[in-house]
């Protein structure tokens, strides 16, 4: 076992442990703010796994898009909807958790069985390593040109859709009761986050 290989192994084990433990913490922690920041850590660890797989461009895209955009967006959403509310208990919560945990564990067992028993066509063709970025560019502008252009249209539609959905005066009346909804009243009924400072 050479030094490089053992270094790779140790890096993989550490990153895998960070990914799995971090994901468990994201799902299980009570405080949603801790979950959001740990989610950023999980994304960074996944980017590290991509670096171990010789994919520097995708690792950079992962850091830029997931940590830089998605995670920040999630933190902003938490900030906007962060009202302490006492969730009313629901019947059979523990039973539900155990049942879904059993289902997830059995699915995990199925996946592990498939991974262990499938006869993968290893070793594949030799990896091109650091030329991957150039090869991705060739793919994007030759055989994956149509999906690439469609992705730009998709991003435009998502941007417009997000703006339309998050605008204030979209719904003028409540869907259930039919009463007119005053968007201002909802926010004024809560104590403001930053109380006015007394002017001297």
């Amino acid at each position, binding site marked *: 076992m050479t030094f490089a290989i053992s270094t790779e192994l140790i890096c993989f084990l550490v990153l895998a442990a960070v990914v799995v433990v971090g994901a468990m913490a994201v799902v299980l922690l009570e405080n*949603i703010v801790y979950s959001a920041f740990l989610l950023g850590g999980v994304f960074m660890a996944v980017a590290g796994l991509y670096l171990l797989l010789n994919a520097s461009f995708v690792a950079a895209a992962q850091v830029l898009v997931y940590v830089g955009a998605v995670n920040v967006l999630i933190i902003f959403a938490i900030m906007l909807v962060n009202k302490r509310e006492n969730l009313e208990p629901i019947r059979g919560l523990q039973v539900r958790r155990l049942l879904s945990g059993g289902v997830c564990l059995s699915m995990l067992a199925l996946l592990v069985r498939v991974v262990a028993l499938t006869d*993968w066509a290893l070793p594949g063709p030799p990896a091109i390593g650091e030329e991957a970025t150039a090869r991705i560019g060739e793919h994007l502008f030759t055989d994956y040109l149509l999906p690439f252009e469609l992705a730009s249209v998709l991003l435009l539609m998502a941007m417009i859709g997000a703006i339309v959905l998050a605008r204030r005066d979209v719904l003028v009346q409540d869907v259930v009761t039919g009463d007119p909804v005053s968007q201002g009243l909802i926010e004024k009924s809560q104590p403001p986050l930053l109380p006015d400072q007394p002017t001297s």
Partner: protein
Amino acid sequence: MNFFTTGQVPLQAYLLVAAFLFCIGIWGLINSRNAVRVLMSIELMLNAVNINLMAFSSYLDGDLIRGQVFTIFVITVAAAEAAVGLAILLSLYRNRVTVDMERFNLLRW
């Protein structure tokens, strides 16, 4: 398995990590009561799929790395999904003043 003799990270190890991540994501998706956490679980599941694609692309398709191109497309779609999902969440919160998933029961049959 030659894992214990050579010490090289095998393909199966990446697939196992992805399987764990996917199952954790599904559990969180089912059991979260905070709507933001549901979106986080979806992101976890998308990342699990990405790890699978990248591992296959590196080990089985090393010269034509098509998996990496697919991963980039998945990252694009995930960003769009997160933006629209959080906008829907904000709009729901404005109408309901809660993020409790149990109280979003407009479509309950």
